[in-house]
């Protein structure tokens, strides 16, 4: 079955549009997630009250979660498709190849950081989302404290967050470029924002495990 909509999304640009849109949604999610998590710096009470307020939204949270899963599926399936097609587009590799100055650590590692982030998210959800929170002495703060009292998990999260930051450093401006949102007046700002946002994500999320391990 083919109609104008499936035709539109089946070309290279079409697939990239899906990639860019879902990716930018995740950047929005990261920002919201970070703002919420910052309550940890206000101490146990503030953090738990944030968790409580979030869950008070009830069905909205469930809808948002399903939305995120859907976005993730699109982003992963499209990302892997594009990655495999790109490998196929150059069956014989160069023997001698140098970067000419365009690519960055972020841009050249997108598929790999993407796959690592997927693995991290699975661990992260198992650790914090799909954990039994029914016993009275278990809440989101005790889980956090228990996890980050182990140095291994602290390091794991720091590395994971750095990988996310690297992915985002290319993803943000790249998303705008793919959606055609490029203008000589704003693009330099968006490109700078990409790096600044990556640093904010890196530092913002990266210090939470460290801080949690200290107060745990």
């Amino acid at each position, binding site marked *: 079955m083919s*109609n*104008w909509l499936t*035709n*539109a999304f089946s*070309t*290279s*640009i*079409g*697939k*990239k*549009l899906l990639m860019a849109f879902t990716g930018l949604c995740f950047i929005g999610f990261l920002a919201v997630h970070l703002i919420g998590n910052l309550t940890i710096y206000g101490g146990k009470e503030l953090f738990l009250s944030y968790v409580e307020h979030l869950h008070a939204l009830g069905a909205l949270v469930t809808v948002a979660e399903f939305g995120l899963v859907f976005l993730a599926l699109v982003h992963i399936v499209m990302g892997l498709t*594009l990655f495999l*097609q*790109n490998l*196929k*587009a*150059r*069956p*014989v*590799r*160069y*023997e*001698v*190849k*140098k*970067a*000419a*100055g*365009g*690519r960055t650590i972020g*841009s*050249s590692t*997108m598929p790999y950081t993407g796959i690592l982030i997927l693995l991290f998210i699975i661990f992260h959800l198992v650790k914090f989302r799909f954990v039994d929170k029914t016993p009275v002495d278990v809440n989101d703060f005790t889980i956090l404290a228990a996890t980050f009292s182990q140095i291994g998990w602290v390091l794991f999260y720091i590395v994971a967050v750095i990988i996310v930051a690297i992915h985002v450093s*290319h993803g943000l*401006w*790249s998303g705008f*470029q*793919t*959606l*055609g*949102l*490029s203008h*000589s007046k704003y*693009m330099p700002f968006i490109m700078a924002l990409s790096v600044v946002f990556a640093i904010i994500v890196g530092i913002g999320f990266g210090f939470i495990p460290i801080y949690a391990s200290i107060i745990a």
Partner: protein
Amino acid sequence: MSDTINITLKVWRQKGPGDKGHFETIPVKDVVTHMSFLEMLDTVNEQLALEGKDAIAFDNDCREGICGMCGCLVNGIAHGPMKAMTLCQLHMRKFSNGDTIAVEPWRARAFKVVKDLAVDRSALDKIIQAGGYISANTGGAPDANGLPIPMEIAEKAMDAAACIGCGACVAACPNASAMLFTSAKVSQLALLPQGRPEAAKRAINMMRTHDACGFGNCSNERECEAVCPKEIKITNIARLNREYIKASIGSDVM
């Protein structure tokens, strides 16, 4: 600065599309540094001919940086180390005595190696055939100011039209994508009133042909922009993306 240098060429030799190919090491003595890279290859070929060996096949035509026929990866960079320069415009004075220089053909699924460094780039022609033109019947010459076009727009169209279709963007792209080429060819027409009537059909058909030829998907690595001898900007790719979105949701083209 001495006027001659000795270099070692590591040049890709491949008998034909089916051959696996290999690097051949050729020491080249007394290269006059005022020669262009292609003239250096000419002298190597003379030497090979005297030895009764097969000459190195490479594409070239104008040798003035305007036709887009020449191009190889020189030490891993398309058209060599200089910015905004085709291979025929690269001079041997940019190299030093004792250098080893690796020379490889453009590599992509859509570009078949014909022989040695010569590559079949007709896939780019296929993209043009899919819509890189306007189909207006020409009549008498129109009045000069009949269609006012702002200077900045004319400049952008001219900048896009500077593309000589050499294929360096594809060669340099880690994904072997021809988006920079396609976007330049779409932009030069999309920016001008004469190109608007067929803009939607052009954007969609050229993109579909791009994919069908086996080029990869752009991931905004910007390597194309870095090697382009005509300094075509990736803002053209953003424009192609806009044209594609507009065409997909706002036109009658299926």
